[in-house]
């Protein structure tokens, strides 16, 4: 049961697809989890995610646009969380886009714009401010950076692929988050709350001067233990993204959005501190500024392993 709870903590902050104008966007957030690892404990988490975007929205209404049929990506990531001290842990994460694709129809000819490669690298430090047994609760604060170490100059047939389809976001980003979990011992239900903020530095590359809008995420979730080692989480996320800016601080009117996402998760705790997770992102409310391509659905499958170096030494 303990591992199930840890897994719940791990997954309540999961990757999101931030809608961008012309593509499925990049996964958001420097975290694969928000859990604080115990001292000398290493948590390895790897996952595969597929995200599909094919609905163009004008404000809150679906609209038709030429050329773009759909956009999708297949993404792998690995994260490591290590408990440095009882209250502090370090988290790092790196992702790889197996493909990031846009399907176009131009003058009745189908065209693919596709890239692949490393995404961004994130580092976070986590502070477990509160950790109690009765009730089972945890409050974790996290702060970190995302470094644009990945590919940002992919090209096809001698043409550089648009920024939104590059594997890396291209921008240095800072993030901070707070996480709360509470569950009464012996009860099947639990509750979590989560808040995440990310701000971006300006990209300066050649003629490209661009800054992504600030990103906020608030989520609340109820957890329910279906069986001894199986939990279901019903998570609702509100994503707020500010407008982007380009050179001379010109506001990009077709950027920024408000989206509510239902994020069901199934968590299975296995023997020897292994675990599995299945989850999906289903947008239930979308409002975008101007015209933007929005995420339709995404799903993710992950495997996790906890390694305690204290136990192996003793």
């Amino acid at each position: 049961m303990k591992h199930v709870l840890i897994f719940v903590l791990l997954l309540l902050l999961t990757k999101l697809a931030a809608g961008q104008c012309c593509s499925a966007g990049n996964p958001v957030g420097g975290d694969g989890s928000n859990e604080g690892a115990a001292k000398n404990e290493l948590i390895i988490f790897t996952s595969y995610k597929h995200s599909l975007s094919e609905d163009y929205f004008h404000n809150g209404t679906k609209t038709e646009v030429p050329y773009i049929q759909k956009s999708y990506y297949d993404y792998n990531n690995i994260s490591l969380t290590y408990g440095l001290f009882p209250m502090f842990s370090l988290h790092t994460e790196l992702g790889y886009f197996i493909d990031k694709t846009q399907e176009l129809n131009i003058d009745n000819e189908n065209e693919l714009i596709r890239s692949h490669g490393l995404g961004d690298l994130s580092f976070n430090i986590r502070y477990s401010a509160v950790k109690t047994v009765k009730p089972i609760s945890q409050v974790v604060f996290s702060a970190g950076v995302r470094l644009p170490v990945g590919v940002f100059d992919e090209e096809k047939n001698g043409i550089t692929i648009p920024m939104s389809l590059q594997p890396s976001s291209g921008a240095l980003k800072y993030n901070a988050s707070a996480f709360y979990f509470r569950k009464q011992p012996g009860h099947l239900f639990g509750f979590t709350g989560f808040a995440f903020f990310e701000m971006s530095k300006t990209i300066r590359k050649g003629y490209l001067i661009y800054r992504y809008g600030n990103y906020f995420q608030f989520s609340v979730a109820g957890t329910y233990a279906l069986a001894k080692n199986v939990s279901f989480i019903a998570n609702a996320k509100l994503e707020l993204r500010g407008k982007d800016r380009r050179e001379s601080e010109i506001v990009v009117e077709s950027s920024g959005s408000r989206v509510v996402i239902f994020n069901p998760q199934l968590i299975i705790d296995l023997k020897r501190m292994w675990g599995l997770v299945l989850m999906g992102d289903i947008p239930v409310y979308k409002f975008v500024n101007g015209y933007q391509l929005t995420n339709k659905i995404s799903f993710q499958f992950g495997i996790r392993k906890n390694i305690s170096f204290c136990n192996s030494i003793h």
Partner: protein
Amino acid sequence: MKGKTDIKNATSGVIVYKMFFSGTLFIIIIFMILFASCKKEPNTPRPDPTDNLALDSIIATKRNIAVWEEIYITAYVRGQHISFNWSTNHGSMVGKDSVTVKYWACPSCVGINTVVCMISNEYGSISDTIMITVNP
């Protein structure tokens, strides 16, 4: 005494003669060099160094377009074995041949956008830009 004077005069004459002769010879040589350098060269064509690699211009079918409007941008180049790299700060491009690309912009690309064409071969690389204004 007179004989000594005659000998001295004769010696001076030789010196003057030698100086005159050598001076004349020097001037003649200078003139020959000058005439030789001024001689008209044969009319053989020389290759223009820019023929090895040149990007003469980038032409767009329109430079002021609306969102989703599609235009063609063509690079006029000289040289052999040229490879192209097209890029833009905002907008999308596709192209089946490298000389001409199709450009359009989605709503988030409204503004004055820069399209860069860089060409390169064994002689080096060179680039030029064109500005495309995308209106809402």
